[in-house]
């Protein structure tokens, strides 16, 4: 290794190389050439097989074990992440489903309450009671009786001559004929539109000694009951916000 070079000049070495490259190959060079060719072939093959597989096939078994442990640790971490995210997702979905159900229920309740308080129009099967009165003998008593009778028979929405009838509706005699329904003056003929089971409502009005009998017994008065598969209660009533009453915590029905 440490032997001093024998040539005095670098030019000698280059000249020898050029002469060797130009020279006719001797018999002894064939074996050397074959080995060099074999080396080149093996080198290219190894480089190629290494590049093709990312080096995994030529890695040793303990290296492979380390890589495998790394990968399985990473897979475990990712799996735990997946399960955490899945539980979050299911929690969020359950929450939104519960919200949607609550919203639907609240909307249904609001609609029911709106029909009961008369803030929306209603349509359904029912009856129409027309009370004629040519001599002013029908008083508020008879109309209140009719309304009470219909409520007992399960009326769900009512209007009397264009005024919505709700729980707080008052019917009073007006001086000089006619009645005031919640302050609105109405005259005969009175037209009471009721939504409910038509058969029940009609039979409630027609019982002997009932509403129809009483009204037709009055001088100059008549009552006609018409059942219909679809009547419309279109009169509305403004909603009054309670000034003093507030919701108290109770168990919902």
């Amino acid at each position, binding site marked *: 290794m440490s032997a001093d070079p024998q040539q005095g000049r670098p030019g000698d*070495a280059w000249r020898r190389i050029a002469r060797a490259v130009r020279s006719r*190959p001797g018999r002894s060079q064939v*074996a*050397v050439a074959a080995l060099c060719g*074999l080396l*080149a072939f093996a080198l290219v093959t*190894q480089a190629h097989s290494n590049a093709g597989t990312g080096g995994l096939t030529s890695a040793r078994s303990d290296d492979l074990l380390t890589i495998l442990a790394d990968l399985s640790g990473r897979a475990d971490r990712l799996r735990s992440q997946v399960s955490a995210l899945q539980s979050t997702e299911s929690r969020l979905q359950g929450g939104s489903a519960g919200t949607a159900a609550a919203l639907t229920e609240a909307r249904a309740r609001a609609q029911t309450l709106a029909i009961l308080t008369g803030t929306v129009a209603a349509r359904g099967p029912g009856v129409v009671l027309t009370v004629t009165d040519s001599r002013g003998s029908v008083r508020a008593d008879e109309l209140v009786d009719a309304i009470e009778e219909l409520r007992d028979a399960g009326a769900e929405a009512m209007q009397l001559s264009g005024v919505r009838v709700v729980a707080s509706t008052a019917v009073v005699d007006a001086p000089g004929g006619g009645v005031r329904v919640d302050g609105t003056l109405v005259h005969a003929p009175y037209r009471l539109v009721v939504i409910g089971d038509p058969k029940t409502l009609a039979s409630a009005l027609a019982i002997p000694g009932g509403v129809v009998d009483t009204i037709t017994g009055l001088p100059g008065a008549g009552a006609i009951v018409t059942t219909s598969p679809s009547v419309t209660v279109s009169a509305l009533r403004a909603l009054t916000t309670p000034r003093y009453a507030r919701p108290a915590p109770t168990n919902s029905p």
Partner: protein
Amino acid sequence: MIVLLAVVGGVTAGLVLQPTVPLDLQPYLPIAVVAALDALFGGVRAWLEQIFNDKVFVVSFIGNVLVASLIVYLGDKLGVGGELSTGIVVVLGIRIFSNAAAIRRHLFRA
């Protein structure tokens, strides 16, 4: 001349055929290649020092490859294959470097 032709032929054959290394040979081929490279550099250095002998070259080439493969094989059997492979590569690399330095001194006087 014929050596250059053989090298070109070997590279071409490797590129064209693209052989897959047999599974049994896979641990040995890289070490064998490094050992052969060491023999090649030693041969070039000997040639420049005008003490080249083709018989010595052939024997050292084959011997290098066989010894390197044997050491790797023994290392695998003993369970220290990875470390022994690294050691062989380090030793052969040092020899290649010193041979390359000698060749450089011959060619460039530097």
